[in-house]
């Protein structure tokens, strides 16, 4: 556990969008771990008047609670309200079996707000983290997520994803109007949604570039499929692929210089790799099968994809250099849309067992498959950049909603939309 110097200033990357109090998706924890770590987030003093969305204490408490790994205690069980580490009476907290305390303070001044916080380990009586920031009020929410990341990392050893984003396709239908499809980007808790594309035609397969600055997607505007890449900040987009037939499933190489995609130039859906700068197009798979849903290995040397070359959809791996193909999945009669965990040792995929479509993880070394979900109507799994959580599409109460499940299966969340159906999610990379 690292002791951090008091007064260390951290310059936050400025968010170009105003934080908003609106969430199109509402995140609900439906299952947490058995032995959640008890932690007390004391109310940050000096929180200025404003909307609830800016309340730093509340955002941090919600983040940590929704991670499923913390038991975030409510005010009435606090034995005292210390203003700083110096005044903490740790025996009082130990008696209540509380392991961590977060103390925070917000102070306004002429140019904005100074915010500082301390994370205290009760049992060792040490400061695990202590930071000070200078921000504007419209950055409170983002700063709270950043503080949640620090707390999460200190106490679990894993990098937090509270400052990451998600994208998804929202489908809305009203009487006497065509369906409306919206590609949206929001904070990972569903807040602050912004549209990237609004269309009366389907939108599919959004894919974040590895630097988090661009998004590739498939759009059916003009009554045929085409792949675009949009700059997320400016909204400028360019057309990447518009061959006759399928233009589908774009997937970025780890260095961001290439896109794997699916084309029917040879009449069958095949995997191609397009160099984004030189525009060189290389065919990577061949034959009469359906080959689709490519995703790159973290080392950029191979691509896994869905193929029915064996008779039913299964996952295969093709080497980028010599195009040698190898089958990966042997359990269940339908495996699709696989992607690698960041350590390259497992894949997460759509897996059918007994007619039920669920999200599963397969250990590549042992071949063992573990199902993470149970609803039977799941699709589109997307891993968080820390490899710890999977975002996916599912059904709930006859509506299409998003779900989140941890890769050990212990934590579950649901994100329904306020209105309409939501599908095709993708989790951003780390953004800061």
């Amino acid at each position: 556990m690292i002791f951090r110097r008091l007064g260390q200033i951290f310059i936050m990357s400025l968010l170009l969008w105003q934080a908003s109090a609106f969430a199109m998706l509402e995140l609900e924890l439906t299952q947490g771990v058995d032995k959640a770590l008890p932690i007390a987030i004391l109310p940050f003093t000096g929180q200025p008047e404003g909307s609830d969305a800016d309340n730093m204490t509340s955002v941090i408490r919600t983040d940590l609670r929704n991670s499923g790994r913390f038991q975030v205690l409510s005010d009435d069980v606090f034995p005292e309200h210390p203003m700083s580490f110096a005044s903490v009476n740790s025996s009082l907290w130990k008696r209540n079996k509380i392991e961590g305390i977060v103390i925070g303070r917000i102070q306004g001044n002429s140019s904005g707000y100074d915010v500082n916080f301390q994370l205290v380990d009760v049992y060792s009586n040490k400061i695990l983290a202590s930071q000070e920031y200078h921000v504007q009020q419209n950055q409170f929410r983002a700063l709270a997520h950043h503080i949640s990341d620090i707390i999460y990392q200190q106490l679990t050893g894993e990098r937090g994803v509270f400052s990451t984003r998600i994208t998804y396709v929202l489908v809305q239908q009203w009487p006497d109007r065509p369906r409306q499809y919206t590609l949206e980007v929001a904070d990972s808790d569903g807040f602050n949604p912004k549209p990237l594309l609004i269309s009366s035609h389907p939108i599919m397969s959004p894919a974040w570039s590895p630097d988090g600055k661009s998004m590739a997607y498939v759009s059916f505007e003009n009554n045929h499929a085409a792949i675009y890449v949009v700059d997320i900040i400016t909204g400028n987009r360019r057309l990447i692929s518009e061959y006759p037939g399928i233009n589908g499933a774009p997937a970025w190489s780890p260095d961001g210089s290439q896109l794997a995609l699916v084309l029917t130039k040879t009449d069958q859906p095949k995997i191609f790799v397009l160099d984004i700068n030189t525009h060189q197009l290389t065919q990577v798979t061949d034959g009469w099968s359906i080959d689709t849903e490519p995703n790159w290995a973290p080392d950029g040397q191979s691509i896994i994809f869905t193929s029915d070359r064996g008779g039913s959809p299964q996952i295969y791996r093709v080497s980028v250099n010599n195009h040698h193909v190898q089958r990966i999945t042997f359990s269940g009669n339908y495996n699709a849309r696989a992607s690698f965990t960041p350590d390259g040792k497992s894949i997460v995929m759509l897996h059918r067992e007994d007619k039920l479509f669920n999200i599963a993880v397969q250990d590549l070394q042992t071949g063992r498959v573990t199902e993470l979900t149970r609803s039977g109507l799941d699709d589109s799994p997307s891993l968080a950049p820390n490899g710890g959580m999977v975002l996916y599409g599912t059904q709930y109460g006859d509506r299409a909603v998003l779900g989140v499940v941890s890769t050990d299966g212990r934590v579950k969340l649901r994100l329904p939309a306020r209105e309409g159906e939501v599908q095709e999610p993708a989790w951003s990379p780390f953004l800061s």
Partner: protein
Amino acid sequence: MQNRFIKLLVFITCLLAITACSSLHSGSGAKGEQGVSAQQAADQVAESKGVGSSDTFSGENTVNGADNSTKLLAPHDQIYYFDFDDSSIHSSDQASLGAQSNYLAAHPDKKVRLEGDTDERGSREYNVALGWRRARAVAQMLEQEGVSKNQLSLVSYGQENPVALGHDESAWRLNRRVELKYTN
């Protein structure tokens, strides 16, 4: 008494006439019923996608005509249905496909778009590929009968463009389809 009897007779005759009319228009072969119910389903869904009317062909005998093109009446947009995870065309659709290809081969300026669709089960991009296979199967059958590639454009929407929004076989079977749409 006689008046009432006549009225009843007229009433029954009308009923019979109406029934006869609807069965005339319910299309050729076994696909007729499905075509009608797709129309009903499309109306309930309130989706303005222009799902075609049921397949009706009133082509005339063209054996003697040197000028075939003026004798053949334009066919309508049509829907072909498929089994789960399958892209083979039902044999009962061959007659209507034959009528479409006859017309298109005789009118090389006419173009159609073939839209492939699937039900919602399974992986989305895989379903785009499956819908593609279905559209290709229809295209190949038309091409074999003399329709030029230039007259056909193909797109697959996979599961993204359902006409029926339920989550059971009664909805799924209506979504597993290729829509043939005249674009001029």
